[in-house]
């Protein structure tokens, strides 16, 4: 008799097909997998499960006579990013923004913003010249002429990528911040401070709220409100801060922290990881918090059973432990940690717990760190990266270099890239490979390591020396296995990755276990 065990997870649905004969172990024929369509246990999820059943049946050439499900306790997970950098309360500093990485000149300057054309008139107070003129020779000539007429020009803001060219033609001892695309929109007449750090260095004056206050004449109370401006500029080579003409009416406008729903079973909060040895990057990362919220949904698995014409053969913990036990060398597996997309589930004989925050939260954190969309973040979570130093040299996360036989595409040069099987995919973030690798592993430790620990504790602990088998999609990632092993190290457990039926790795434990549970009952 052909049967199919169906595991509808929060992220993935898996179906294991097997042939049963009386008195014999099931013969497993096929495991198929697809993304879950809709919420686990919902009618929408049944549509995807049905399609997957039919896909498998077509490959085998026969529809299963029995469809097997576990008792479901569906858990819906939601992720909320509590605070963005856009929420910065700048106080009286109307604009605080980094400039380009190739500015001209050096130093810090304060003055009134004035358009270059205005410098043709009578000299006035100390001035930061603003220009969107495309010709650097012409700009240099006008600045020199203005200074000769008596203008005190302390710095220059340029729309184009001409900072070095203008500094070389005017004055290399003052800061020239370039690539300010909306230079023509800056509030002329406002007081501003600009800074250019020497090559390889970062701004020191404009990353300090008290220095901003002194430079722009803020009182001590306003100096405190300049902290967000200072933090936003930390780590930059060049920067601009412009003073608002009048103090803002509202004070701090930070978004309210997201509160968990009343029926939330579990709430898991985690900040973006930050590099330990880079204080400025650390400060900027700490401005954001990502929160995972899990809510128990009142949708019974029987609904799904009705929709699929399936029968419920037992609890999920039983299926998970029976499926994981097919791992070669395991014998029995009394403790299974299922590291899924939405939740970390711990299964043991007689019970199970589900905790919010798993693979999807790690993906979200990776996306936040890299400023990358979800699809890229999902790949960045698993793949190694390398920086393309030159078209022929890759700098890897372990600081080694390899050489390419053909040049890397121009869009990858100088960038951190995902090392995909089909080639290099450039990322936007300017992070060294070693730093990114450490952040990625930190994200896994903070989410999956921490939740694995919480799950083992919630389930009542595990005796020293006991085998804990890791199942689920996340367990196919060796970094996750390492993170979980480290999180449980002091409990002296044998943490191992499931290899369901010796061929499926950590996937399909529940689907295979359902078949085994059904076969054992007959």
């Amino acid at each position, binding site marked *: 008799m052909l049967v199919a065990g169906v595991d509808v997870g929060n992220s993935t649905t898996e179906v294991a097909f097997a042939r049963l004969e009386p008195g014999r172990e099931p013969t497993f024929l096929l495991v198929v997998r697809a993304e879950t369509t809709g919420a686990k246990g919902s009618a929408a999820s049944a549509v995807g499960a049905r399609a997957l059943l039919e896909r498998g049946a077509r490959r085998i050439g026969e529809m299963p006579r029995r469809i097997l499900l576990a008792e479901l306790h569906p858990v819906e997970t939601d992720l909320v990013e509590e605070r963005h950098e856009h929420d910065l309360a700048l106080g009286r500093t109307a604009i605080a923004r980094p400039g380009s990485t190739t500015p001209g000149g050096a130093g810090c300057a304060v003055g009134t913003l004035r358009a270059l054309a205005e410098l043709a008139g009578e000299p006035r107070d100390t001035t930061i010249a603003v220009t969107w003129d495309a010709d650097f020779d012409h700009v240099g000539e006008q600045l020199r002429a203005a200074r000769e007429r008596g203008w005190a020009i302390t710095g220059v803001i340029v729309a184009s990528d001409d*900072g*070095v060219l203008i500094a070389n033609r005017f004055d290399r001892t003052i800061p020239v911040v370039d690539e300010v695309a909306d230079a023509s929109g800056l509030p002329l007449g406002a007081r501003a401070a600009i800074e250019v750090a020497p*090559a390889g260095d970062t701004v020191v004056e404009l990353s300090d709220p008290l220095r901003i206050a002194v430079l722009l004449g803020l009182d001590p109370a306003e100096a405190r409100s300049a902290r967000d401006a200072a933090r936003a500029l930390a780590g930059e080579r060049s920067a601009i801060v412009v003073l608002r003409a009048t103090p803002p009416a509202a004070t701090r406008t930070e978004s309210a922290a997201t509160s968990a729903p009343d029926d939330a079973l579990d709430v898991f909060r985690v900040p973006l990881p930050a590099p330990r040895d880079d204080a400025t990057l650390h400060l900027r990362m700490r401005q954001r918090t990502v929160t995972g919220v899990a809510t128990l949904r009142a949708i019974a698995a029987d609904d799904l059973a009705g929709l699929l014409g399936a029968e419920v053969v037992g609890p999920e913990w039983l299926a998970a432990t029976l499926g994981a036990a097919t791992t070669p060398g395991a014998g029995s597996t009394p403790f299974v940690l299922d590291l899924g997309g939405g939740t970390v589930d711990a299964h043991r004989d007689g019970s199970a717990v589900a905790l919010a925050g798993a693979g999807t939260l790690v993906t979200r954190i990776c996306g936040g760190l890299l400023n990358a969309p979800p699809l890229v973040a999902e790949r960045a979570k698993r793949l190694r990266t390398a920086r393309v130093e*030159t078209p*022929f040299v890759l700098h890897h996360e372990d600081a080694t270099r390899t050489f390419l036989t053909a*040049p890397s595409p*121009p*869009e990858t*040069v100088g960038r951190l890239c995902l090392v995909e099987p089909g080639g290099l995919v450039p990322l936007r973030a300017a992070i060294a490979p070693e730093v990114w690798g450490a952040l990625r592993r930190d994200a896994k430790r903070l989410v999956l390591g921490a939740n694995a620990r919480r799950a083992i504790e919630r389930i009542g602990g595990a005796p020293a020396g006991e085998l804990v088998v890791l199942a689920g999609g996340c367990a196919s990632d060796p970094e996750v296995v390492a993170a979980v092993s480290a999180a449980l190290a002091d409990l002296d457990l044998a943490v191992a990755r499931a290899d369901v039926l010796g061929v499926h790795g950590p996937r399909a434990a529940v689907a295979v276990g359902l078949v085994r549970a059904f076969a054992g009952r007959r």
Partner: protein
Amino acid sequence: MVHALLADPDVSRSIAAAFEEEGVPVTIAHEAEGEALTLARRAAASAPGLVGIGADGTTIIVVLAAAPGRAYLEADIADARAVARSAARIIARRPLVDLPRPPVEAS
């Protein structure tokens, strides 16, 4: 670090400006004639940074000495400054930005 051989003297200022802005040394020489790809290959072969630029009246090309078979960057001569900036950034190991699209070949 980079050599540029130009059959079009008008782009000399754009190329020099791009390298000055990036702080990368360049030597510029003029040729009476020649196609951009040929000039770029010759320039790359003699450049200490193994990157060469060639330009004729219509096209600007960057060739890497280690892969001289084809243009690494190619654009209309109107984009000479952007292409030169990218050539400088290869040497400076900075990301190449605003990469110009190669000219569309007539079918």
